[in-house]
């Protein structure tokens, strides 16, 4: 038991320690300063710039950034739809997997373009290697796009008045070539050395001791697993994701993969501190995020290690904790740890079945996605947090008797309008989509019987989880939900699409508008945003705005299940 806690503590602390120098490195990348690996990496992005005719020194304003982001995403969307629906005749398909139906391809494409990686298919049978490679590409570009927007916002937050905010393609390409690619290579190598396959050959066959013929799916898995962890993507190569022994072979790879989930999101905060030369602000934000994360982590680990009371009542020994849906090689603590880390960041890869988490741990996972900014997805996590900062600055700015300002820029009606809409969007999408499904199911349980394996509060939790995961661009799900139907594919697709791009556009717009405003120097009367008090304010705003609006829904789902078990 103690070794389990030790294991996760080491993973947690080591990751945070690694994130500090990495943040500095990322900060230098976005500030166009020299880094030591530039010698190897600079030629690569120069090649991309040359190939695509990008002039990285051409600066854009926030609207041009937005246009760039949206156009390239549209191109990727069409490209991916084409590949996924035509895999049956395209090359690199040794196992002869079929093309996807239109609704599944729609869902999958949006899911990967939006960095969600909700998978309503299973990797072994649902996609060809070409399909996997395309999806892998998206894991890079969706993460890179999120980071690029974040870099734009960093530059917009600087203490000056400008509308020149760097070049989007420059940030985007460099996010991929200078940050995601080298880290992925390191992680992929670690995985390959520990047994994760990396091959273009088809299924491998062997005859077991019993004499059965067993076909084992394999493929270019190590490369995909590395980026799915690092880019807060979560779209696994195999259906069982990182619970699969070939995707996550042992406790060490589990630690490495788990660390990779939140390494870059944490580092982005320090990168902001570096770009803005505001280390105290970075530490304050980091502190708030870490406290928030621990608030979900601690109960989750506690309840998983304590075991399921319903199973205890059956007289079954639960010394190892609640082991339903968990891998023996990881244990309950490491699975609980992963389940929280993967949901607070918008990763969504899993090393166990979230459906089988005890009710409160399931709720912690959902809360992690409902808040979606305790570290959050690469780049986008910070963008979400930025919205909460704006709201907190507004209220606390008033409390010190000044019209609110953040980093020397006045926050007025226009910015407030955008911030409020974005803050509103998340509960709106999650609650209304869940409401629609609940309504359909409640009024005609027979027709929709295929949706839910558990009709009670757990079934409700499964639906709530599915949409929360879509809205948070997370991608994990409760397995008991029958979700590969046109209804779920399309509704989840819409939720993913809206909740990916609007929360990127919002902060970008606010930051762009603020950047153009007159810079007001600090005085003794100015609210300081790099203090513990302001940190508490942000935490309170997040809990009251983001978490509490889900309270009634959570009451009917996990809380009802939890109290019902006693």
């Amino acid at each position, binding site marked *: 038991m103690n070794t389990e806690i030790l294991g996760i503590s080491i993973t947690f602390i080591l990751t945070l320690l690694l994130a500090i120098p990495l943040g500095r490195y990322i900060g230098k990348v976005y500030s166009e300063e020299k880094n030591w690996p530039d010698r190897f990496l600079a030629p690569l992005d120069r090649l991309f710039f040359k190939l695509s005719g990008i002039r990285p020194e051409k600066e854009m304003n926030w609207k041009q950034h937005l246009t760039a982001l949206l156009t390239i995403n549209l191109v990727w969307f069409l490209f991916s739809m084409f590949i996924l629906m035509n895999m049956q005749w395209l090359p690199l398909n040794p196992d002869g997997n079929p093309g996807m139906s239109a609704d599944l391809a729609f869902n999958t494409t949006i899911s990967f373009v939006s960095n969600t990686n909700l998978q309503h298919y299973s990797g072994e049978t649902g996609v060809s290697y070409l399909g996997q490679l395309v999806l892998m590409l998206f894991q890079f570009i969706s993460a890179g796009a999120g980071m690029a927007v974040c870099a734009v916002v960093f530059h917009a937050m600087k203490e000056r008045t400008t509308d020149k905010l760097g070049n989007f393609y420059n940030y985007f390409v460099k996010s991929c070539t200078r940050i995601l690619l080298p880290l992925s290579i390191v992680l992929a190598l670690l995985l390959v050395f520990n047994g994760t396959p990396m091959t273009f050959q088809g299924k491998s066959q062997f005859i077991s001791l019993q004499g059965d013929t067993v076909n084992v799916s394999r493929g270019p898995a190590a490369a995909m697993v590395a980026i799915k962890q690092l880019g807060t993507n979560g779209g696994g190569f195999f259906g069982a994701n990182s619970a699969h022994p070939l995707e996550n072979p042992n406790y060490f790879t589990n630690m490495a993969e788990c660390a990779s989930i939140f390494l870059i999101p944490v580092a982005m905060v320090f990168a902001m501190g570096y770009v803005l030369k505001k280390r105290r602000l970075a530490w304050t934000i980091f502190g708030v995020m870490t406290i928030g994360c621990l608030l979900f982590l601690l109960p989750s680990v506690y309840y998983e290690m304590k075991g399921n009371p319903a199973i205890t009542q059956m007289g079954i020994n639960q010394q190892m904790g609640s082991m339903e849906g968990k891998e023996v090689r990881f244990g309950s603590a490491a699975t609980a740890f992963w389940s929280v880390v993967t949901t607070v960041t918008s990763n969504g890869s899993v090393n166990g079945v979230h459906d089988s988490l005890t009710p409160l741990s399931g709720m912690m996972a959902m809360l992690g996605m409902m808040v979606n900014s305790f570290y959050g997805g690469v780049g986008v996590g910070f963008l979400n947090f930025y919205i909460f900062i704006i709201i907190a600055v507004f209220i606390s700015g008033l*409390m010190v008797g000044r019209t609110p300002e953040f980093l020397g820029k006045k926050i007025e009606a226009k910015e407030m309008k955008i911030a409020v809409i974005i803050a509103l969007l998340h509960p709106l999408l999650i609650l209304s989509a869940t409401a629609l499904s*609940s309504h359909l199911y409640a009024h005609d349980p027979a027709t929709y019987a295929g949706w839910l394996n558990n009709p009670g509060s757990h079934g409700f939790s499964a639906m709530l989880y599915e949409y929360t995961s879509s809205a948070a661009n997370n991608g994990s799900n409760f397995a008991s939900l029958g979700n590969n139907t046109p209804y779920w594919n399309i509704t989840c697709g819409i939720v993913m699409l809206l909740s990916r791009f609007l929360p990127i556009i919002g902060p970008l717009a606010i930051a762009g508008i603020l950047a153009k405003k007159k810079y007001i120097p600090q005085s003794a009367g100015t*609210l300081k945003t790099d203090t513990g008090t302001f940190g508490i304010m942000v935490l309170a705003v997040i809990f009251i705005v983001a978490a509490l609006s889900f309270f009634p829904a959570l009451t009917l789902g996990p809380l009802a299940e939890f109290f019902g078990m006693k």
Partner: protein
Amino acid sequence: MSKHRTTRLFERELVAEALKQSFIKLNPRILFRNPVMFTVEIGCIIMLGVCLWILSGNRSQGSLTYNILVFAILFITILFANFAEALAEARGKAQANSLRKTREETPAKWIQTVGEIFVNEIKIVPSSRLKKGDLFLCEAGDIIPMDGEIVQGLATIDESAITGESAPVIREAGGDKSSVTGGTKVLSDKIKVRVTTEPGESFLDKMIALVEGASRQKTPNEIALTILLAGFTLVFVIVCVTLKPFADFAHTPITIAAFISLFVCLIPTTIGGLLSAIGIAGMDRALRANVITKSGKAVETAGDIDTLLLDKTGTITIGNRKATHFWPAANISQQDFMEACVLASLADQTPEGKSIIELAVAQGLSAPSLKGGEENGMRFIDFTAETRSSGVDLPGNIQIRKGAYDSIHHIVSKAGNPFPDETTEKVKSIASNGGTPLVVSHQKKVWGVIELQDIIKPGIQERFDRLRKMGVKTVMVTGDNPLTARYIAQKAGVDDFIAEAKPEDKMNYIKKEQNSGKLVAMMGDGTNDAPALAQADVGVAMNSGTQAAKEAGNMVDLDNDPTKLIEIVEIGKQLLMTRGTLTTFSIANDVAKYFAIVPALFITSLPSLQALNIMRLHSPETAILSAVIFNAIIIPLLIPLALKGVAYRPIGASALLRRNLLIYGLGGILVPFIGIKLIDILIANFF
């Protein structure tokens, strides 16, 4: 100082008027301006429908009494919110009216121009008949009928009706003190005045209109806050609407009353109900400080001021320079020197000259030597720019002169007398201490030096300290030379100074500060101040100032008190803080309300959720009623706070945030837990 009028918070007449208004404001078209309360009104109407539905035989929505109770409480909630706004309006109006009363119908001596040759004929007309541009005459004892500008003459005027200050002031044509205010009284002399405003369009009239709501515009900050509150309201619309299918899924029937109660409790009704009252109260507080604001925005901006431009004279120092020391030269006795100084100053009508006599008397100079005059054979020599000295010739051709160092030096050395070194030293040391030395000669021999000093107002350093802690930079504007200016600036504790200031210097300084992103406030009275007043973010014109200055600024100070700027900054800060703290309080309240209502919604079908009922409320009905009752009565309980404003403490922004977060944030979480529980205990007896 000014007499601040005080009205009790809940004066009977005001309350009666406010009560009437709170019903009139129920009109949806009026309430629409306030999205939070408007949704409550919709909820209230729905509840009325539910009550009728039950009357017509429906049994699914619970007892009629319970539903009527919910309806009634919601109705009262809206009334409370309206009442808060109406009370603030009534107070503001009462305040403005008490000022306006001073200018009720008074007979005016209208100067009528007859015929083409300008024959002036004086006609007595009621003041309301006077139009802009008309001329009228005021003589000793007359009440000035309208605001105007003196075009001819000079008069002493008693302005106590407006300012509360009983000492009469002098107003004269031309110059910066040419404005007169309706309702004040001419004490002496005769003036001809041109009316400057149309009837009903004076600053006061405009302010009353602002308070009354007809022309009240939401300030930018109020708009932003309204957006935030509307956002919160929308979130809870979503929460409550989606709860219906969720409850269907869980086979839990929820009554309409419960839905609406949950909704009304969650939306920020407290701040929503008090928001406009807070804004009006801000203007009202300004008015109480005898400042007329031309817009609500100006008050708000005042809270953001980074730089304050203050005139030295009257703000930092008391009036003019005063004599503080007699320094006789060697072998001249103190007594002789003082006598000579007094004699040289007897006819000197400048404040400096008078102060020399005052100081001598204070130091015990006996009365006989104060007597003088032409009849005793004295001949007074006035100050001229040429001689740069003044004094007296006594019988027996004794010349006493006082003047600047170089002019006396000139007289003395021309007569071939030595100028003592120790006097030269003294002169230098006085000058380097920010003082002004006046050398006195007797029979062209140096007798000593009088030291004149600026007297810094007592307590002004503390005020500047307070401003510094607020983050406001103070800048002293003075005509003095840079050396003196620096000395006084240091002594008074201002952060910067503009020496040898010309009107355009002020303007340039303001522009420079604004370019670096700062907000600047200044006070002025002269026509040459007008551009700077218009340029400043907050320009306060003195009521005694010229019409141009008053038009250019966005506030008018009736007291003509330059330190008023400091008060105005605090009023602005208070206004914003009150909004912020009540918003925090209102939102923090939601935690407890969730815990009161959510378990109550589901307990009947999911009894295990009793565990969430951490307040152990009696029953679902009492839980919901307690929450809505709490939600309603917190509004009137907070009216005093909204109207008086949260006290501002200059302790630095972070400390202030910590303090307010602790009181209104943590308090906002805890208070409703206690309040709801108490109400539940009370009403449990009836259920």
